[in-house]
C-alpha cells in the first residue's frame, strides 16, 4: 500500500514537473544595457531568431553605457533569489559572479555544437569557469585601434604611421597645421583604453601580459612602464585643452567632422563613422596603434546564464545555442561593429575594417598575442582595474610624473589585490 502510494506520488510529481517544463518553455528574461540605436538594432536580430523558435523575449534594459546601473539591479535580483535568465556582462565580472555559485551549466549545448573548437582560448577564459561553460560570447571588440580622418591626413600629406615615432611626427604635423591632433575624452576609462595600446607599443605582448595579467610588480614599476607613461605624456600634449569629461562619441565626431585627425579608441567607434555615412578607406582609416601590429587587446560582451531552475532551462539552452550560431554571430556583429566570437564565421558580410579585424583576431589567437584588455576588465578583476585607472588618470591629468606614476602603480595594484 505504502509502495503504491509512493509510486503515485512520484508519478504525480513527474507529471507536474513535465507540464511545468512545457508551459514555461517559451520565455527568457534578458538584462542588458544595449539601449542606444545601433546596439538595440543588433539585439533585435537575436530577439527575432528566438521568436521563430517560439521563445518569447522579456526585455530588461537598464540604460547606462558602462552597465553600472545594470549590475546594481542584478545584485538586487540575485540576492532576492530571482535572477534573470541571461545577463550581458564583461570579463572578470563574469568570473566574480561564477565564484558566487549562481551561474548555470551549459556543457550539454557546448558539447553538441562543439564550441570548444571554435572559440579562442583567451575568450574561453571568461566563458568557462572550473571547466564548465557558463556564458556565451556575443562579440569581440578590441581596443588598440586608431581612427583617422583620411581627408585631413591627405591634405597634410601624412601617410599611415607605422611606428610610434611616425605617429608622434604625424600628430605634430597636424598640430602645426592648427588642427587638433588627437581627439579624446578625459574620462578614466578612455584614458585607460589608450593606455592598453600604449603599453603594448612599448613592451609588446610579453610585457603587457607580465604587467596587466600576471600583475608582476617588477613590470608594473619598471623602466618600460615609465616609458609607457612618458608616451601618455606625449599624447597629452596633442589633446585640446577642453578634453576633460567629454564623451567618446563626441571625440569621434571631431574626427568625422575633420576638426581632429586621430582618435585612439576601441572599434565601437567605427559605428559612429558608419552612421555618419563615412566609408572605410575613403573617408576614414582604421589601423592598429602604431607598434602593436599583430597584437589584439580584446574585450568580449557575453551573455552570462544564471541558474533559473529546471523549468526555464530549455529556453535558456535554446538562447545560448541561438547566440552561438554562425549566422547570428555574423549578422549581429556586422550591425554592432565588432567581430564574431567564433573564428569559423565567413567574413563576406563585413566591411574592410571588420575583415581586417577578423583576420587579425584569428592570427593573434594562433600566435598567442590575443590579450585581454586591461581597460575593459579582461586582464584583471574590477578592483585592480580601477586601481590602475586611478593612476593612469592622475598621470594624464598632471598629478603624477611618469616615474611617480610607475611607482604609484605598483602600490595601487598591491593594495587592490
Amino acid at each position, binding site marked *: 500500500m505504502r509502495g503504491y502510494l509512493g509510486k503515485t506520488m512520484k508519478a504525480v510529481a513527474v507529471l507536474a514537473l513535465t507540464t511545468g517544463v512545457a508551459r514555461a518553455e517559451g520565455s527568457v528574461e534578458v538584462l542588458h544595457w544595449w539601449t542606444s540605436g545601433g546596439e538595440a538594432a543588433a539585439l533585435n536580430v537575436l530577439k527575432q531568431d528566438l521568436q521563430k523558435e517560439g521563445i518569447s523575449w522579456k526585455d530588461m534594459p537598464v540604460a547606462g553605457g558602462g552597465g553600472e546601473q545594470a549590475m546594481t539591479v542584478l*545584485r538586487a535580483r540575485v540576492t532576492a533569489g530571482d535572477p534573470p535568465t541571461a545577463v550581458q556582462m564583461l570579463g572578470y565580472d563574469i568570473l*566574480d559572479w561564477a565564484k558566487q555559485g549562481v551561474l548555470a551549466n551549459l556543457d550539454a549545448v557546448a558539447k553538441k555544437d562543439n564550441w570548444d573548437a571554435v572559440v579562442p582560448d583567451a575568450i574561453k577564459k571568461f566563458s568557462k569557469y572550473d571547466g564548465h561553460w557558463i556564458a556565451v560570447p556575443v562579440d569581440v571588440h578590441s581596443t588598440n585601434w586608431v581612427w583617422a580622418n583620411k581627408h585631413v591626413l591627405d591634405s597634410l600629406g601624412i601617410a599611415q604611421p607605422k611606428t610610434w615615432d611616425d605617429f608622434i611626427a604625424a600628430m605634430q604635423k597636424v598640430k602645426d597645421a592648427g588642427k587638433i591632433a588627437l581627439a579624446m575624452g*578625459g574620462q578614466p576609462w578612455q584614458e585607460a583604453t589608450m593606455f592598453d595600446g600604449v603599453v603594448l607599443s612599448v613592451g609588446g605582448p610579453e610585457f603587457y601580459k607580465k604587467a596587466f595579467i600576471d600583475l608582476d610588480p617588477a613590470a608594473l614599476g619598471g623602466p618600460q612602464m615609465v616609458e609607457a607613461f612618458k608616451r601618455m605624456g606625449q599624447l597629452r600634449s596633442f589633446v585640446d585643452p577642453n578634453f*576633460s569629461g567629454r564623451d567618446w562619441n563626441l571625440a569621434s565626431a571631431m574626427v568625422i567632422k575633420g576638426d581632429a585627425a586621430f582618435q585612439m579608441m576601441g572599434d565601437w567607434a567605427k559605428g559612429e563613422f558608419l552612421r555618419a555615412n563615412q566609408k572605410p578607406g575613403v573617408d576614414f582609416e582604421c589601423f592598429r596603434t602604431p607598434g602593436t601590429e599583430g597584437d589584439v587587446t580584446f574585450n568580449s560582451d557575453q551573455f552570462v546564464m544564471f541558474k533559473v531552475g529546471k523549468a526555464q532551462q530549455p529556453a535558456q539552452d535554446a538562447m545560448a545555442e541561438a547566440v552561438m550560431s554562425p549566422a547570428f554571430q555574423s549578422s549581429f556583429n556586422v550591425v554592432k561593429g565588432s567581430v564574431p566570437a567564433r573564428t569559423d564565421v565567413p567574413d563576406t558580410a563585413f566591411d574592410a575594417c571588420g575583415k581586417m579585424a577578423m583576420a587579425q583576431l584569428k592570427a593573434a589567437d594562433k600566435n598567442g598575442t590575443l590579450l585581454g584588455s586591461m581597460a575593459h576588465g579582461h586582464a584583471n*578583476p574590477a578592483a585592480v582595474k*580601477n586601481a590602475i585607472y*586611478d593612476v593612469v588618470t592622475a598621470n594624464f591629468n598632471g598629478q603624477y610624473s611618469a616615474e611617480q606614476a610607475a611607482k604609484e602603480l605598483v602600490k595601487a595594484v598591491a593594495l587592490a589585490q
Partner: protein
Amino acid sequence: MARSTAIDMRTRLQEWIPKIVLAPSVATTLIFVYGFILFTVYLSFTNSKILPTYGWVGWHNYWRLFQLPMWSVALENLAIFASLYIAICIAIGLGLAIFLDQKIRGEGMLRPIFLYPMALSFIVTGTAWKWLLDPGIGIEHTLHLWGWTSFHFTWIKDSNYAIYCVVLAAVWQTSGFVMAMFLAGLRGIDNEILKAAQMDGASNWNLYRRIIIPQLRPAFLSAFVILAHLAIKSYDLVVALTGGGPGWATQLPATFMYSYTFTRNEMGVGASSAVIMLMMIAAIMIPYLYAELKEPK
C-alpha cells in the same frame, strides 16, 4: 455605568491611536535606517566583494581605506568644500537677509528669486553649471564671442581648481535658503530692544554687531548643522558637475563610497568609508541634538 465605560474606551482609544498610527513608520525606520546602519558597520569588518559575504577580517578594510590616495584626496576635498561652502553660504545668506530686512520695496518678489535655486535638484544645478563653466560652450566662450578674447576661466578643467567650481555651484544653490532662515530669525527679534538701543545712541553697525547678530545664534546653529550634513553627503552635485574629475580631483567621500561599493566590487572598503562618514556626521549632530534637547528645561 454604560456611558462611563464608553468614555473609558474612548480615552483609551485616544491614547492608543497615535501609537498604532506611528508604529509602522517607527518599525520601518528601525529596520531600514538603524538596522541597515548596523548591517553596514558589520559589512565593514568583512571581506565582502561583489555581494555581502561574512568572512571576518577585523580592521583590515579600514587599514586599506587609509592607504588609498583617493580617500585622502576625498577627505581633503571635503575639508575644502565643507569649510568654504558653509562659510560662504552663511556670509551671503546673512548679508542678503539683512538687506532684505531694511523694509525695501518689492521684498515679496525678491525673496522667492533668491530662494528659487533651492527648488532645483542638485543634478539640475550641476548640469547647468557644467555648461556655464565649460570653456568650450559656457562663460569663456560667450565672452570670447563678445570680443574679450584674453578672458580665461578654465577652473573646471584644472585639477587644482575644479573643487572650487563645486563650491561655487553649491553656494549658488543653498545661500537663498540660508537667507530665508536668517530672515525668519531677524523678524523674530523684539523691536522694543532695538528701539531702546537706538535711543541709547547705538549706530547701525553696532546695532547689528552687538545686538542683532548675537540674537541670531539659534539660526546660525541650524544653518551650520544643515549645511554641514549637506556637505558631507553631497554626491549628486559632484556627479553631475565634474563626474569626480578631472582625473579624481573632485572626489568626495560620498562618491568614493559609491564607486568602491558598486563599481569596484570592494563592498568591504565601501562600507568602511560609509562608517567613517557616519561618524563625521555624528560628530556634528550629537552635540547639536544634545544642546537642542537640553535647552527647554
